[in-house]
């Protein structure tokens, strides 16, 4: 391979990559600038123009005026639902993945296949069974109606299985067992310290999944005080002239700048969590499947 060629390659690589990055960023910039403008300016001014900083404060004030600041309640709900789901789902996935990978669980192959299958079941099949169960359990409108079902996370179980079966040498675990450690102790003191990147990934994916989940809360939560942000924002949109001027009869001061601000609010936590877990994510998700 010639030297000259090696110098050209990075440039050729960078152009498409940066171009695509620009395509990803432009809509975000638009979203970030939108609340600085008035509704009329969003339509009339250049798409990527900046209004005034006080636009954020105005838009925030208007959002808070919707039902006495219920958006704060939704935000708080989302935070604690998602936190509970992340903690719960990580524990469940670790335990299940570890058991599948290391213990002589009966029907292991079947269970694994079923877990994989769990990732491709269409949602429409589950609407009624899910609803009837939650209803029969008396959990309707309770946060647990959302949290408990979210704890089962087949993608995470599969990731954990790949990790424990591929990345952790069985000799280490066996050594611990010979030293007299119980199965839980082996998991806790030997396997887990070797699984930080796995935990990072599980946390990230379960957080994103629960934060943006709309369908499940839609099915089981019927009180606005119990809504997470995803559901609340949809109710807010449907009830304001923001995107639907035909919803005649509303004088609520929520228009496109306010919706944009609400959208930013919904994205920021995902971006933050991503930044925190990125160093784990970059390590690779399916490394196990390649090495085994």
């Amino acid at each position: 391979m010639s030297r000259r060629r090696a110098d050209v390659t990075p440039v050729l690589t960078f152009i498409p990559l940066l171009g695509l990055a620009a395509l990803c960023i432009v809509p975000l910039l638009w979203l970030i600038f939108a609340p600085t403008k008035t509704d009329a300016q969003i339509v009339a001014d250049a798409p990527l123009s900046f209004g005034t900083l006080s636009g954020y404060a105005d838009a925030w004030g208007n959002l808070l005026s919707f039902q006495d600041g219920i958006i704060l309640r939704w935000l708080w709900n989302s935070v604690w639902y998602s936190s509970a789901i992340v903690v719960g789902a990580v524990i469940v996935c670790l335990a299940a993945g570890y058991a599948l990978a290391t213990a002589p669980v009966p029907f292991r192959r079947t269970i694994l296949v079923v877990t994989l299958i769990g990732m491709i079941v269409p949602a429409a099949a589950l609407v009624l069974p899910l609803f009837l169960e939650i209803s029969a359990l008396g959990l309707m409108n309770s946060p647990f109606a959302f949290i408990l079902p979210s704890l089962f996370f087949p993608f995470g179980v599969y990731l954990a299985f790949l990790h424990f079966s591929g990345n952790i040498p069985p000799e280490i675990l066996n050594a611990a067992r010979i030293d007299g450690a119980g199965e839980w102790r082996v998991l806790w003191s030997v396997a887990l310290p070797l699984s930080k990147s796995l935990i990072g990934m599980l946390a990230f994916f379960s957080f994103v999944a629960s934060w943006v989940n709309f369908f499940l809360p839609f099915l089981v939560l019927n009180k606005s005080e119990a809504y997470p942000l995803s559901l609340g924002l949809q109710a807010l949109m449907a009830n304001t002239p923001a995107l639907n001027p035909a919803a005649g009869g509303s004088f609520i001061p929520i228009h496109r700048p306010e919706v944009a601000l609400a959208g930013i609010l919904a994205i920021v936590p995902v971006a933050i969590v991503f930044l925190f877990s990125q160093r784990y994510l970059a390590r690779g998700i399916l490394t196990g499947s390649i090495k085994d």
Partner: protein
Amino acid sequence: MHSPARSTRTAMIAAALVAPLALSACAGSPSQEQTESDPTAPVVVWTDSTRQPGFEAYAAAHPDVDLEITVYKPAELISKVQLFNASGSGWPDVVFAPAQGADPYYEWAASLDDKIDADTLEGFGTANRPCEFNGKTYCLVNDVSQMVLWYNADLMAQFGYEVPTTWDEYADLGKRVAKEHPGYLIGSAGSSFMYHSFFRAAGCPLQDVTGENEVHIDATDPNCVAVAEMLDELIAAGVVSNLDLWSPELTTLAQEGKVLMHPGASWFGEFVFRPEASWAFGEGTLAAAAYPKWSGADEAYSANAGGGTYIVSKHAANLDAAVDIATWMATSSEYQATAPTYPAYTPVLGEWGERISADPFYAEDPMPVLAEAVDLINPINDYTVRYDVETAFGTVIVPVATSGGSIADALPKLQEELKNLAQSVGYTVVD
């Protein structure tokens, strides 16, 4: 969305943490209709945010009734009712919703004829028709969106045009405008709203209820063809725009003052013509005229583009209070006089109209025209059906119109779509 995170959607499967219980739920018997009203039971209210202050005012005035108010998305009501029906519990007691939700087909709304006195019901005139199914009343209409011919009074005077009183005159005026003042618009037909403003008003039978679960649909009826041909001709002449009513392009044209007139609902004045971000008409330019008369029709009919309604659940524990709340919302002047939309209940109209009549935004008081139009809703399409004609227009007609095709040629396809839709929700279709 091909993403790993997406796969977690299926995490819902986990419903299953307690699988066997669900089976017992299937076997559970649905709860019976309430026969006795429990005055201490709380009343669960679902509303949109616009009606929320009304319910709160009721709660403040009636401290003995315990209201639990949730702001929801009214379009979701039927989905939820289907789920509640399946599980036999969970229904809200009073809702603000489209009239469709009251259809006895969904076995949920309480019939109100024996619960509300006849005088009150009469106060609605014909405006409560969307709530009548098989001759019985299942809900109370909150507001009417009758059509009027909105026009720019300054421009009309400047051009020296008379406001048309028939659709033939409207079409003739369109041809004059095309010649004398090209670029000016007398309407638009690029969104599914054209169903209401043109086809529904003209009596084109697309939701003509003829009996219990029986509906007459004929998109190739002469009434339909006449309207379609008129629109095709005016669109070709460039005086009726085929842009979406809410599109930025039409908004820009309107802001440049190119809208000479536009047939539209009663709420267009406040929500289309007035806002800065919308068509931004200047003070004292907008006026309303009676809807033009369709050739062959006995009256100058318009259509009701659909208002909200109050529905009471027949499962409500505190049924008396639930009925009282719904009645109060729909008929009391305490609430209706302050409501932003045109009230269906006539006795409160005088008080409601004072603000509009005094508003300098209008070139002349639109109230007399609005009040007249409300009694002239074309009865052919005024009863509620379970399929959505507007959506069908969006699927079949709008793409044809916006891409410059012939609306008249697309009518047979509309017929097929509507017939299929109606049958899928349990109607017998009469051609």
